[in-house]
């Protein structure tokens, strides 16, 4: 199962990187979102998926699953979620002010 997750995460990484290299703002933002999803999947997979019982004292079994990677992932998901929402608004605002979503056209010509 871990191997499968790692492969999925690798696919997501490559799609994310590909999207980030394009010129349209929306695609770049989707790229960063995919990159973070890939990271979260990998974070869960490299620490081992389900190694034992629920991590509660007195639950059955002597081996417990490590709850920490899930806590880390949750924290990271919340942060990326907020950031993605923010950058979508920012990109929309930039589109309204400058009239383009092409990152190349955004570049030069900023003589105030």
């Amino acid at each position: 199962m871990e191997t499968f997750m790692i492969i999925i995460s690798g696919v997501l990484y490559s799609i994310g990187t590909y999207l980030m290299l394009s010129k349209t703002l929306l695609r770049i933002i989707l790229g960063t979102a995919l990159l973070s999803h890939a990271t979260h999947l990998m974070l869960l997979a490299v620490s081992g998926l389900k190694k034992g019982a629920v991590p509660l004292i007195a639950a059955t079994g002597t081996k417990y699953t490590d709850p920490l990677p899930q806590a880390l992932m949750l924290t990271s998901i919340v942060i990326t979620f907020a950031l993605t929402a923010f950058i979508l608004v920012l990109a929309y605002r930039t589109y309204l002010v400058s009239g383009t979503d092409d990152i190349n056209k955004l570049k030069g010509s900023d003589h105030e």
Partner: protein
Amino acid sequence: MNNLVIMPIVIPLVSGMLMIFIRERILWQRWISLISVAASAACAGWLIRLNQTQGVQTLHVGGWKAPFGITLVADMLASLLVFTALIVSFACLLYMFGSIGREHERFFLYPLVQILVCGVNGSFLTGDIFNLFVFFEVMLIASYVLLGLGGKRRQLKETLQYVLINMTSSTLFVTALAFLYSAAGTLNMAHLAERMAEAGQSGPMTVISILLLIVFSVKAALLLFFWLPGSYSAPPAAIAAMFAALLTKVGVYAVLRVFTLIFPHQPQITHTALIWMGAATMILGAFGVVAYKSIRPILAYNVIISVGFMLFGVGVASQAALTGTVYYLVHDMIAKALIFILGGAMISIAGTDRLQDIKGLIHYRPLLGWLFFVAGLALAGIPPLSGFVGKVLILEGGIREEQMAVAVIGLVSSLFVLYSMMKIFVQGFWGETFLSEGEQHDTGKSALLPGVMLTALTVGMGLGAEWVLSMADLAVEPMLDRDVYIRAVLRTE
């Protein structure tokens, strides 16, 4: 266990949240901001005192013992940096009051500043590397909004670039932490340091450390600084001053902490990389200060040069170099805030930041001119000002460890700093003034009080170097003998 440790994080956070509810009462917000920063600074000052008398202070949040819970660690390095960051924020707030305008103030400027301060203090104080990531994000999201606040075309463009670069590097940060956790099984920095010392720093660990180095390089503008000149030129001067003083320094702190505590065992790879990245940063920064003829880009490239210089000190990693780095870090926070505030005042008086259009400001505001002169000398490291002591120690360390070439690059880069500062001073302040009475866009008075305050600090730090160095020595102690840090976190009570 000492609850005081969390105060510099909680006070700004709570007052920031409070101020969101009193959006229209700007006078109240100003007072709350000042009081909150001053109170946190008092706590940080007390922490410094406690460090001198009782050693490293820790707090296991929620009563969960390390390494199971998150530990906050106020060693001398963290306390000193938190204290300086708060003093600098105080000065920047004073400058904001007179310079930034009603529109910014009405749109949650002061709450955002408090959240930024909270994130910066948290990054310095945390003893858990994932928590460091979280506080980085707290700091960064406040800076995204501060950068974009105002919504001019240029600001939006720079914010977009800044956010995308930082999102990517944060993703890399989480990736590195995932690898680190799966390889070492812990994220508590003291615990990591202990395990790394026991099991040795294997090949994969070094790869992880390089990944972390790349992440911190983006945040600290070490070599990967291409986002910095644009995004530090876009926001109003008071905000740029806070960014220049605090944001990159948090990155430098992260490198300093991680590569002295967790990954010091393969210096021939990681520390050599640090030294040469520092050298390249100084050279490229020097090109930048020569190439530009406007105030803001020149100041931004000065930030880059000093980052390169400090990371050279971290890379050398001898006692003298580390003490110098800590001292220089404190100096640089103060001096960068000062120079950005004064530069901002020049721009606001003249109404432009192109040097050829600014002339003879000394007739109009002599004190501003002389403050700028002193600040420029402090940045270049002329004795008896504060930059000198740090530079001497870092260079001494570098030469003792036989890094002659990079030490020479460091010295030459200081010359370029001096050249660029004098370029601004001579062009901007000397000569006949273009401005007749009443033509200036702004009085520039708002910069005088924080300017005098910070100048007094750089002069005081230079003259009282002995006293500051005794604190820097205490800050370096856990870096040379990691057991001090590990014991304080893992073996108390």
